[in-house]
């Protein structure tokens, strides 16, 4: 594939490298060990890539068939304003989110897992760089009094992380979060990037394929350690058990589902030629994909525990344990991981503040429901302000003091602030309709 590589002007490029030295201090370690961990793979480089030869025409919506826009000035002013907000917010969150993984990076038990997460973080830095490139490469004066240069300076001078995340951040509690986040939340990112590669704004669309190739690695940085942990758990390891993994899945999956936006929305993006699928459709594909991931993890467990079994026999054991909930050849239902119900622990979208249990069972009592959630979530997360805020809102909804829709609007949402790469790092907790970078992602609201 033909790719154009560019750098942003020297002084901004240097500013990014300086930012990296401060916020990604392990970068040198990554590069020193690159060839050992990633032999034959091109070394990481801070630069912007544009995929050449993408589709020339707008691919869906009202302007379908017209040439894609190459300059912001040619867009409808409202669309251009939205796009600019999306790129700015995206840039700041890509940079800011690197700090989220940094919290627990040092706690990895395995150097390989750690270096993979580190590479993913460096690639998120490149995603930020990619967005800066979009800001500097076009003239945005049609929609903003702030010049591209000023916007970039603003983004790089933000000590992103702390103030953007504020009290609404869901912190990582252990390295299991790093991996599970990549496996589940970067997976949402993959969907969004995939959808945005049809964007009517050509430079944005051209930015997506290289980011998608990196995203494939981000998924692996999550799924590969999860597989190993399941295999080790099957052999009796006490370090990371399947119960630990289950609780972290329960913590993130509901947030991942909500990142697709309200199940009833998404039509406007399709009409604008910005995305090819409505929210519920994309969310459903995602949920099915996670179901497959869960089954794969369980197969790893079964085959590690019972290596003498052939494929068919192992599948039969897994099916029986899951369907009958009984121990088969020493493997119990609780030894495996399971997909939480789509309505479990939701605070946005159609099932917001429903008292729906992990297996889809209905609860009539808030206290019983909170006890149920407590039993299914990681201990450290239960002690977080995020969980407390949710619990308080849930009581208000149950007492009829507020509606679920109103409460949902007030809950911080793990949403893609902006439009570009919605993977791990572009994800921020934002309260209500507020946004970190000024660009609300419509579909995330109830």
């Amino acid at each position, binding site marked *: 594939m033909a790719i154009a590589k560019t750098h942003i002007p020297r002084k901004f490029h240097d500013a990014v490298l300086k930012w990296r030295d401060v916020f990604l201090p392990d970068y040198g370690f990554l590069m020193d060990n690159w060839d050992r961990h990633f032999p034959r793979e091109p070394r990481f480089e801070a630069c912007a890539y544009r995929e050449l*030869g993408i589709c020339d025409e707008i691919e869906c919506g009202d302007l379908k068939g017209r040439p894609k826009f190459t300059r912001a000035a040619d867009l409808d002013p409202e669309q251009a304003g939205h796009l600019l907000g999306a790129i700015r917010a995206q840039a700041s969150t890509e940079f800011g989110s690197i700090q989220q993984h940094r919290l627990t990076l040092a706690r990895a038990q395995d150097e390989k897992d750690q270096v993979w997460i580190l590479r993913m973080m460096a690639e998120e830095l490149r995603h930020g760089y990619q967005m800066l490139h979009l800001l500097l490469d076009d003239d945005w004066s049609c929609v903003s009094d702030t010049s591209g240069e000023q916007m970039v300076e603003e983004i790089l001078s933000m000590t992103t992380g702390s103030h953007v995340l504020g009290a609404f951040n869901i912190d990582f509690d252990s390295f299991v979060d790093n991996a599970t986040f990549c496996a589940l939340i970067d997976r949402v990112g993959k969907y969004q990037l995939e959808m945005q590669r049809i964007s009517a704004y050509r430079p944005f669309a051209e930015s997506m394929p290289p980011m998608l190739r990196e995203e494939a690695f981000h998924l692996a940085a999550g799924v590969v350690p999860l597989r190993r942990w399941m295999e080790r758990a099957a052999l009796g390891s006490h370090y990371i058990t399947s119960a630990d993994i289950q609780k972290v899945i329960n913590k993130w999956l509901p947030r991942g589902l909500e990142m697709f936006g309200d199940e009833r929305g998404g039509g406007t993006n399709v009409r604008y030629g910005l995305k090819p699928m409505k929210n519920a459709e994309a969310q459903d594909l995602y949920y099915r994909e996670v179901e497959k991931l869960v089954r*794969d993890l369980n197969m790893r467990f079964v085959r590690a525990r019972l290596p003498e079994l052939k494929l068919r026999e192992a599948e039969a054991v897994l099916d029986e344990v899951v369907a009958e909930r009984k121990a088969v050849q020493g493997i119990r239902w609780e030894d495996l991981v399971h997909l939480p119900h789509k309505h479990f622990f939701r605070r946005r979208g159609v099932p917001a503040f429903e008292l729906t249990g992990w297996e889809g069972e209905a609860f009539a009592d808030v206290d019983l429901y909170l006890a149920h959630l407590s039993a299914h979530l990681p201990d450290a997360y239960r002690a977080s302000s995020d969980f407390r805020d949710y619990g308080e809102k849930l009581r208000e909804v149950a007492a009829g003091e507020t509606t679920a829709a109103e409460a949902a609007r007030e809950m911080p949402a793990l949403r893609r602030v902006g439009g570009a790469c919605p993977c791990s790092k572009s994800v921020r907790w934002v309260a209500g309709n507020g946004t970190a970078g000024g660009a609300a992602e419509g579909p995330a609201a109830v």
Partner: protein
Amino acid sequence: MSDETAEVRIRPLQDTDLGDITGLDEKIAGEYRPDVWELRLGYYMRRDPDASLVAELDGAVVGFMLGEVRSGEFGLEEPTGWIEVMGVDPEVRGRSIGRRLAAAMLDYFRARGATTVRTLVDRDMEGIAQFFTALGFEPAGLTPFSKKLA
């Protein structure tokens, strides 16, 4: 599975196909090699996630084909599509699934600017050679040489 009218769908490879592909390989080669396939799929996904394909029959993965476009190899300067690894579930062979995978991959190679598609077939694997012949491939003017090092 044996329903001749069942619907075949060809789609790009995804990371969650690993389990199914490992299973297909096990059916074909008789060995469970999850780590080999994890590495392999990782490579192709990272290089070009759209180039490699799987075939689904009624939603179940029954075949796969891995490949990519490269240039500059063996002195071949022009962009060349390479079909590198493939497999079809023995239970559904002979139903044009391999043919459809190849057709989709060739379309993709063309769209990527490749003017030639190449593959290497072990002389002992006669079925595969016949498969490619049926698809219009001809022996190329490159002779592979090898030498045992141990």
